[in-house]
């Protein structure tokens, strides 16, 4: 197993102590609630072998929860904007969204030309996604909830041991501009969740709780002061390149960032 001599180290943190995140957007105080018809699926709790961690620390326990069956669409986000104009691109507070926030939108209430009402909304910040979730009485899923739901292929809850499943995901990730397509055009996974892979990256509540600093070969000591102290752990599934990519993507983000292929879906406690 010589090729595996190179170990990838990560910081595991159990809390989300990050200044930019604990300063919740003031906008949320004035949120107008909206009614969402989005279908949710119940995910039965359980445990899985985490991507991060070693031996006993790798067992991740997840409580039962609900999660949206698909990413939030442009049309759904537009409903939110109509009731909450403080989140339109002309009015959004700079602190909560960078300059590319909804930048492809024709105007405050017109979705991008290349996209469809039923395409996933992208170029939204973590703050905006969080505000949306709250406006429909939900929240963002945690990394662990998202990863747990995403273990499923079409026929089983946990397809992580199937090499062809990883290959499928890797291939799906290479799709360019898949975010302009409409949701639910592909088959759902075992739980009935659509578009978990290859359409958009998705925000999670604690997207930066696992630190990938960019110096992926030595993530044991970097930026420790920015995050809560935690056990450093080793990933052993070096072949799980798909998971690597998700954690790398999350690690490259800040809460005000908006990206062309980054959207979200919501979750809810039972």
């Amino acid at each position, binding site marked *: 197993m010589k090729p595996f001599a190179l170990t990838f180290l990560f910081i595991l943190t159990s809390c989300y102590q990050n200044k930019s995140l604990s300063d919740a957007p003031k906008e949320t105080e004035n949120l107008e609630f909206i009614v969402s018809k989005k279908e949710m699926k119940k995910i039965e709790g359980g445990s899985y072998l985490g991507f991060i961690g070693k031996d006993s620390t790798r067992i991740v326990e997840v409580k039962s929860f609900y999660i949206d069956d698909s990413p939030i669409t442009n049309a759904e986000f537009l409903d939110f904007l109509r009731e909450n104009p403080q989140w339109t691109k002309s009015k959004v507070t700079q602190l909560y969204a960078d300059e590319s926030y909804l930048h492809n939108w024709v105007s405050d209430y017109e979705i991008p030309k290349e996209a469809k009402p039923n395409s996933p909304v992208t170029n939204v910040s973590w703050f905006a996604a969080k505000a949306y979730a709250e406006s429909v009485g939900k929240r963002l899923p945690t990394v662990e909830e998202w990863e747990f739901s995403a273990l499923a292929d079409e026929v089983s809850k946990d397809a992580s041991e199937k090499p062809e499943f990883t290959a499928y995901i*890797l291939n799906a990730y290479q799709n*360019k501009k898949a975010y302009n397509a409409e949701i639910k055009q592909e088959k759902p996974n075992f739980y009935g969740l659509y578009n978990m892979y290859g359409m958009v990256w998705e925000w999670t509540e604690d997207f930066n709780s696992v630190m990938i600093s*960019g110096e*992926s070969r030595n993530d044991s000591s970097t*930026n420790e002061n920015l995050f809560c102290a935690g056990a450093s752990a080793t990933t052993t599934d070096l072949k799980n390149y798909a998971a690597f*990519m998700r954690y*790398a*993507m999350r690690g*490259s983000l800040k809460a005000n960032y908006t990206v062309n292929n980054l959207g979200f879906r919501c979750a809810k406690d039972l």
Partner: protein
Amino acid sequence: MKSLFRPLFLAVLFTLSFTACKQNSDSSLLADSTMNPEDIALDGTTEVLEMPAPPFVPTPVGDRAAKKIIVNLEIIEKVGELANGVEYNFWTFNGTVPGAFIRARVGDEIELRLKNHEDSVFPHNIDLHSVNGPGGGAEASFVAPGKEAVFTFKALHAGLFVYHCAAAPVGMHIANGMYGLILIEPEGGLPAVDKEYYVMQGDFYTKGAFGEKGLQEFDIDKAIAEQPDYVLFNGNTGSLLGANELQAKVGETVRIFVGNGGPNLTSSFHVIGEIFDRVYVDGGMTINTNVQTTSIPAGGASIVEFKADVPGDYVLVDHAIFRAFHKGALGKIKVNGDENPKVFKKNEPLQTKS
């Protein structure tokens, strides 16, 4: 006149600024060797580096003073060809494999601006082996799609260095073409030559076998097994062949900056029909002479020089020779000019009695 005054001036300057160094040297070389490159002053000007696409390189530094250099690199993920009709989803610095050639001198302050194109799917970064600092800049340059990261480093060591993406999963980023070379010239520059070229070897792992047409996916199992389908110079079987052959004239001196991005294989770099007059061993400042084949590790580089003595086609190969003829590690330098029978001639067949 200029060339005479300059070393004198520098020698005086160095003596002045280094009172601890009592030697009264009449040679700028000695002054240079005692000077900490960290303390080399900038001349106050700033240059945005112009970088032509491979196999070409930016203009030599010559005898210019150290200054601030701005290097703009953009990460572009795009479908290109490994071979005729064989498509691959490359991840690139500036849209080419290898990425743009960066050229500076010892003492330069280099501001590296790394932009990740907004249509990129993945986050990326850059680790330059010429950087003295954490991760070679990898952490400071980790950048999400659509964003830009900037960091600055002072070039302290002369040599030819590899740069590459180091974002997780590193092997895949490199296997998809994310590497290039950065040359840090010593003060006064490398000796002038007639032709300079930029060649970088890389190994590629595809679902289909060598030559299988269509868009080929990256094959992680082959990558881990270190069994590439393609071993290429400059990312395509034809990068240095046909209309793209490197050119030189008889009598010219040729310098090739050769790098190896890997991710896995070591190159046994050889030019068929030539002997390297000089090789900067491992891309450092030690020069070996009269070299037939030079070994270039993954993540390493070498500078090879030769004089074109005789006209003809000279073939660049990885002399692990099955890679050349079955995996694509082939290129050519066409040398034009008059025959040079003193050095080489083909004799008439010997008359033999029947």
